[in-house]
C-alpha cells in the first residue's frame, strides 16, 4: 500500500445528519471544518424521521418548556439528567423558530403560525393531559429538517467528503487529533488530522432483525471510539417503536395516533385502555410496545398463535381520508406501496420495530466526551445526536425528542468545538497515524478464508431480537452475550472474497458488521448487569424499578472480549423520582 493521503483541518465532523450538519453550520464560519459522511448528506437517516419536533411554542394551546422537560424526565423513567432536559426543552423553542426562519415548510395554523399536534408522553401541567407540542411538516419532518440544514450548509460553503467511512480515531491519551477514513469510491485510506473531532454518526438499529433503521445505521462512531477505550453509556436502553409496518419494520409515525389512530387487538378491543388509562394510545413508546407484545403473548394478536410474525391493528380509519392525505401522506403511501393497504379504509398491520438507541457516547451538554465516571473529559473529542448520550432520553425517549436532540445538541457541540479549535494547537502525532487501520485492511483483503459474514449477521440479528429485545431475562441475556462473543471472534477471522478497491461493498458490510457486533456485545453486557426494569429495559426476572440500587447511568468499556462496567450518577436536581404512571 502506498502513501496515505493526509489532510489537515481545524475541525472534523463525522456524520452529516441533523446533528452533524447543525454543528457544521456553527463551526464552519469560525474554523476550517470538514464533514465526512458515509452516504451523501441528503441520504442521512434524519431524513426518515416523520412525526415532528417537540417545542413548547404554545401556538395552539398553552405550553411551557418546563412541562416539556418534565415529560422528558418522566418519559425516560427518571434516568434523564434533569438539567440537560431543561436545556433541551428551552432551546427547542429557539431551534424550531430558527428552522422556520431558514425556510422549513412547517404545517401552519389558520393564522399562519407553526401548527402543532399531539405526541406520545407529551402533556400539559406535569402529566395532566396530552398537549399539542409537536411541530411538523406533514409526516416528513425529518426530511425537511435534513434538507433545510443541508441547504444552509450549501449557502455557507461547508466542505463535505461524501462516501467516506470512518474506520479509526486518532487518540493520544485523552487528546483526540483526527480520524482515519476509507474512501468508498477508491478503497483508499485517508488521514484527517484535526484540532477537534465531532462524532455525529447516528444510531445502530441494524443489530436487530426488524428495524426502522437504514442500512447505514451501524453505529460506526461509537464502535470506533469504544475500540479505542472510550466508554459507552446506558447501552442497555434501546427503543422499540410500537408501530412498524408488519414484516418490514418500516416506521409508522406516532403522529397517526396523535391524529386519532388507535391500536386494536383481534377482538377489536382498544387494548391501551388497560395499560394506560389516561394517555391511552399516546402513552410513551416503551409502554405501548410492551402492551402490544403482551396482547400477542396472551393470544390476542391478530393471528392469535403467538408466532414471531403475529401482529396487531393500527386503526387510522377514524382520522378520515382528508386529514390522512393532508397530514400523514407518507404513511398512507407506505401502506399502499408495501402492503397494498389503504389506511383510510382498512386497519394497518403493525408490530414493534427496533428504532432508537437511548445510549451512546457519554457527553455533557456541550458534546464533550466523558472519559470516566468522575468529571473527566477527552480533549478535542465531541459527540452529538443519536450516537451520543447526554443523557436527555434516559431509559426511554419520547417521540419528537430525537429531532430536538439533534438540533439542540448538534448546535451546542458545534459551538464548543469551534471555540476549542480556535484556541488549540494541532497535536503532533506519535508514529504514523493510520498505519494500524492500513494493516488491518490489508489482512482482511489478503484472501483469508473464514465464515460467511452473511451467516454471522443473521445470527447477530436473531440473537439480539430474541434475547435482548422488548422483554428480557438474565438467562437469555447471558446466553446472548456468549453467542455474541463467538460471533465477534468469527467475524475477526472473515476474509473478503471481493479484492477490488473501488466501491467494495463487501468490505463496507464487514466493517459495519464488526461495528454492530462490538456494540451488540456492550448492549447485552450492560443489559445483563442492570437488575431492574426501567423504561425500555424490561426484565421479567426483575420486573420492578429499583431506585435504591439502579438509579444511575451505566458506563461500559470494551476490553478485548470483555465489557468493563461502572456507573455515573443521574442529575436529579429538579424533580424527585416518582412512580411512572400514565
Amino acid at each position: 500500500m502506498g502513501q496515505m493521503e493526509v489532510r489537515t483541518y481545524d475541525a472534523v465532523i463525522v456524520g452529516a445528519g441533523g446533528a452533524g450538519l447543525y454543528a457544521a453550520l456553527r463551526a464552519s464560519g469560525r474554523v476550517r471544518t470538514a464533514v465526512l459522511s458515509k452516504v451523501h448528506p441528503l441520504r442521512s437517516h434524519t431524513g426518515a424521521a416523520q412525526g415532528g419536533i417537540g417545542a413548547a411554542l404554545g401556538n395552539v394551546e398553552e405550553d411551557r418548556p418546563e412541562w416539556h422537560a418534565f415529560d422528558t424526565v418522566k418519559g425516560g423513567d427518571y434516568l434523564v439528567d434533569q438539567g440537560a432536559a431543561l436545556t433541551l426543552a428551552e432551546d427547542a423553542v429557539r431551534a424550531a423558530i430558527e428552522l422556520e426562519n431558514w425556510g422549513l415548510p412547517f404545517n401552519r395554523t389558520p393564522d399562519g403560525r407553526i401548527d402543532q399536534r399531539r405526541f406520545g408522553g407529551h402533556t400539559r401541567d406535569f402529566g395532566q393531559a396530552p398537549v399539542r407540542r409537536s411541530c411538523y411538516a406533514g409526516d416528513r419532518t425529518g426530511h425537511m429538517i435534513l434538507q433545510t440544514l443541508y441547504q444552509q450548509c450549501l449557502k455557507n460553503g461547508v466542505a463535505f467528503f461524501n462516501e467516506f467511512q470512518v474506520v479509526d480515531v486518532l487518540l493520544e491519551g485523552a487528546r483526540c487529533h483526527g480520524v482515519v477514513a476509507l474512501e468508498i469510491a477508491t478503497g483508499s485510506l485517508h488521514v484527517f488530522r484535526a484540532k477537534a473531532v465531532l462524532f455525529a454518526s447516528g444510531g445502530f438499529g441494524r443489530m436487530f432483525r426488524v428495524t426502522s433503521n437504514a442500512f447505514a445505521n451501524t453505529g460506526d462512531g461509537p464502535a470506533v471510539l469504544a475500540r479505542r477505550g472510550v466508554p459507552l453509556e446506558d447501552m442497555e436502553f434501546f427503543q422499540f417503536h410500537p408501530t412498524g409496518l408488519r414484516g418490514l419494520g418500516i416506521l409508522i409515525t406516532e403522529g397517526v395516533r396523535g391524529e386519532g389512530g388507535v391500536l386494536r387487538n383481534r377482538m377489536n378491543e382498544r387494548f391501551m385502555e388497560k395499560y394506560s388509562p389516561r394517555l391511552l394510545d399516546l402513552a410513551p413508546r416503551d409502554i405501548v410496545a410492551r402492551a402490544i407484545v403482551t396482547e400477542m403473548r396472551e393470544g390476542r394478536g391478530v393471528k392469535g398463535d403467538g408466532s414471531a410474525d403475529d401482529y396487531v391493528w393500527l386503526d387510522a380509519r377514524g382520522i378520515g381520508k382528508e386529514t390522512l392525505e393532508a397530514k400523514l401522506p407518507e404513511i398512507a403511501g407506505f401502506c399502499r406501496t408495501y402492503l397494498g393497504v389503504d389506511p383510510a379504509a382498512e386497519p394497518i398491520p403493525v408490530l414493534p420495530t427496533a428504532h432508537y438507541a437511548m445510549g451512546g457516547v457519554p457527553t455533557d451538554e456541550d458534546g464533550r466526551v466523558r472519559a470516566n465516571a468522575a468529571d473527566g473529559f477527552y480533549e478535542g473529542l465531541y459527540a452529538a445526536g443519536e450516537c451520543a448520550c447526554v443523557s436527555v432520553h434516559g431509559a426511554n425517549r419520547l417521540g419528537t425528542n430525537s429531532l430536538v436532540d439533534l438540533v439542540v445538541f448538534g448546535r451546542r457541540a458545534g459551538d464548543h468545538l469551534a471555540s476549542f479549535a480556535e484556541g488549540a494547537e494541532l497535536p503532533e502525532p506519535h508514529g504514523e497515524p493510520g498505519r494500524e487501520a492500513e494493516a488491518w485492511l490489508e489482512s482482511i483483503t489478503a484472501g483469508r478464508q473464514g465464515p460467511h459474514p452473511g451467516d454471522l449477521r443473521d445470527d447477530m440479528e436473531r440473537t439480539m431480537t430474541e434475547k435482548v429485545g422488548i422483554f428480557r431475562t438474565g438467562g437469555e441475556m447471558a446466553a446472548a452475550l456468549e453467542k455474541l462473543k463467538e460471533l465477534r471472534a468469527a467475524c475477526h477471522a472473515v476474509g473478503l472474497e471481493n479484492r477490488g478497491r473501488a466501491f467494495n461493498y463487501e468490505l463496507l458490510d464487514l466493517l459495519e458488521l464488526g461495528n454492530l457486533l462490538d456494540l451488540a456485545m456492550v448492549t447485552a453486557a450492560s443489559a445483563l448487569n442492570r437488575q431492574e426494569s426501567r423504561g425500555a429495559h424490561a426484565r421479567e426476572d426483575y420486573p420492578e424499578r429499583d431506585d435504591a440500587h439502579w438509579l444511575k447511568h451505566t458506563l461500559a468499556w470494551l476490553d478485548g472480549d470483555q465489557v468493563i462496567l461502572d456507573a455515573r450518577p443521574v442529575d436529579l436536581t429538579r424533580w424527585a423520582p416518582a412512580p411512572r404512571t400514565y
Partner: protein
Amino acid sequence: MRVFLLVKRRSSPGGLEPEFARYEVEVEPHERVLDALVRVSRRDDPTLAFRRSCGHGVCGSDAMVINGRERLACKTLIRDVADKDGDVVILEPLRNLPVRKDLVVDQEKFFIAYRSVKPYLVAPEAEAGKERPQTSRERAAFENATNCILCGACYSACLVLRAGKAFLGPSAVAQAFRFNEDSRDRGFEERLQALDKPDGIWPCESKAECTKACPRGLQIARQINETKRRITRHKTLREKS
C-alpha cells in the same frame, strides 16, 4: 418464487464495455427489488456494487433503471416487475450520468446543477425569535416540490439530456421552483442567473418524462413550465419599466 436479475455491470468509468450478469434469486412477490439485490450481493456475488440506505423510498440512494424505467429499488416490489418463476428483471444504472461501477453513478453533474440554482431560502433576516408567518394556501403553492429527495430519477429520464443537450435538468428547476414560489423567499432574481440562459431552463421540451419518472410524485414538468412563464413575465415587466 425464483426470478433472474439481469444486472448491467461495468467495473470502472473508462473500463470495458458493459455486460450483463445474470443471477438467479429466490424472492417473495412482496419483497423489494432491493431485497433481491442485497441477497445476491451477500450470497452470490460480493463484487456487485449498488447504493442503498433507508430501504423505504425516502433517502434517494437506490434510484436505478428497472425494466427500462427509472425507479427506486426499495420502492419497487418484485410483484411490480415479475409475475412468475423464471421472469427476468433487468437492472441498469441511471442514464445521463457517468457510471462509476455497476449500478453506482457519479451524481456530481446533477448536484452541480442543483447547487447552481441556490436551493435555499433567500430572505432578509427574520425578527429575532419570531416566525415568518405563512398561510396554508401559501405553503400549498410549493409543497409538492419539497418532496424531492434528489435521487436523480428525473435527470436519468430526461430526453433533452439524453439527446446530449446542455440543460440544468429537471430536478434543479423543481428546486428553484420550490423556493421561488415560497412566500417567504426573495431570491427569484438571483436564481435567474442559473435558470435564464441557453443551457439553463430553456432547453426543456416539456416531454414530461421527469414527472412520470419521479418516485415522489413531484409535478416537475408543471413546475418547469410555471417557472418558464414566470421568467418571461418578469422580463416583460422589466423591459416595460
